[in-house]
């Protein structure tokens, strides 16, 4: 049994980082991973002096707009993302990924900061954040630092966050004109399914040409990453002329290039190929209808 733990709940980020500087504290956000892990892992709180609850900190549960960016507070819930006009307007793939998570009850409680800091390989919001080139803002008593979300997650369940830091928010550049995005996932069933494999896409289309594209699969590699070989293959080409089947096959090869052959490869190769094929087809249809 753990020794008695201190519990801290504060209103200001400043107070929170001070507490973190002086104590070894486990951070608590929405609790949906925390409470499961605490009960499953005997040493989950071993070595900690207490728990720092982030749920009452002012200002980190909001989505705000500035001229060139949208800032998403770390304590914004998946439900907030799904319902947000700003997110649906600028980052549909992120809203779609949030809608695909867990269940109504989980989406009401679980936060985007928690999803990224827990850093499961199947974390659904991670792919879209990387695709939209989001940066994570971390704060400690020494001040703030920012880094690309693509750099933030090092390995499954391992991030760059230091013991004295709190993830405060994400900033996402506003997409340029002609940006399309989408998110798809394959799970065992519709609700409450852990993602077997997913794909976030962000593409900038100008006069039918793919000016820029980010393709980020989830659960395909230990840490979601942009598939740069496939992207290079597509960039600069006419969208309507892209062979989606061929791109699917190339994506599957790129995955194996990163992960090597694994026990799950015979399943993941065709599954990923299908997601890429669908994503390109969806993009072609969407641009044909709205572009």
């Amino acid at each position: 049994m753990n020794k008695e733990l201190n519990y801290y709940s504060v209103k200001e980020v400043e107070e929170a980082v001070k507490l973190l500087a002086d104590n070894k504290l486990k951070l608590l956000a929405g609790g949906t991973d925390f409470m499961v892990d605490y009960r499953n892992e005997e040493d989950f709180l071993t070595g900690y002096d207490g728990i720092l609850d982030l749920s009452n900190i002012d200002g980190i549960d909001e989505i705000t707009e500035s001229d060139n960016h949208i800032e998403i507070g770390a304590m914004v819930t998946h439900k907030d993302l799904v319902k947000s006009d700003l997110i649906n307007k600028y980052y549909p793939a992120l809203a779609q990924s949030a809608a695909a998570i867990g269940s109504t009850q989980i989406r009401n409680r679980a936060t985007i900061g928690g999803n990224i800091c827990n850093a499961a390989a199947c974390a659904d919001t991670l792919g879209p954040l990387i695709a939209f080139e989001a940066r994570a803002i971390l704060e400690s008593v020494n001040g703030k630092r920012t880094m690309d979300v693509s750099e933030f997650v090092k390995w499954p369940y391992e991030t760059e966050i230091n013991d004295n830091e709190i993830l405060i928010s994400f900033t996402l550049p506003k997409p340029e004109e002609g940006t399309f995005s989408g998110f798809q996932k394959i799970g065992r069933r519709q609700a409450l399914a852990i993602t077997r494999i997913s794909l976030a896409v962000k593409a900038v289309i100008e006069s039918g040409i793919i000016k820029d594209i980010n393709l980020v699969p989830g659960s395909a590699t230990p840490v979601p990453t942009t598939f740069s070989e496939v992207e290079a293959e597509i960039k600069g080409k006419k969208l309507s002329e892209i062979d989606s089947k061929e791109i699917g096959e190339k994506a599957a090869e790129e995955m194996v290039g990163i992960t090597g052959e694994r026990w799950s490869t015979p399943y993941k190769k065709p599954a990923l190929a299908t997601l890429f094929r669908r994503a390109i087809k969806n993009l072609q249809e969407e641009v044909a209808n709205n572009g």
Partner: protein
Amino acid sequence: MVNVKFTVNNREVEVKVDPTERLLDTLRDKLNLTGVKEGCAVGECGACTVLFDGEAMNSCLIPTVQAEGKEVLTIEGLGTNDTLDPLQQSFIDYQAVQCGFCTPGMILSAKALLNKNSSPTREDIKEAIDGNLCRCTGYEQIIQAVQNAADGEVEA
């Protein structure tokens, strides 16, 4: 131990809890509200669903310390023994209850929906109860019961 004050079923309560105690355990063991059920304990079955400031949430995943100042509604706070909530009556009328274990959570998930949307579509209802497992009814009677309580057209 931490003192936590919150409202349960419109009644102010104060409890002393360990910071890792689940709201589920506080409700059942300290407040004797055993309508809240423990199923999977990992947020997948929805049997422990309560309304937390009006939103459906899994009480097995909420540390009680986070309930400070919040309003919690359990099945015991819905209707009375003499006057059932229309949703409760509708679950009876449509035989949406078999073993009954999922029913409190199911009704609260439906209640959260109807509080915000008085004429939900079938899809709205399915989404609202997507975190509640029922191994008896096959869901059809439950969906019909919610449609009926919402004064919607009940699809046979």
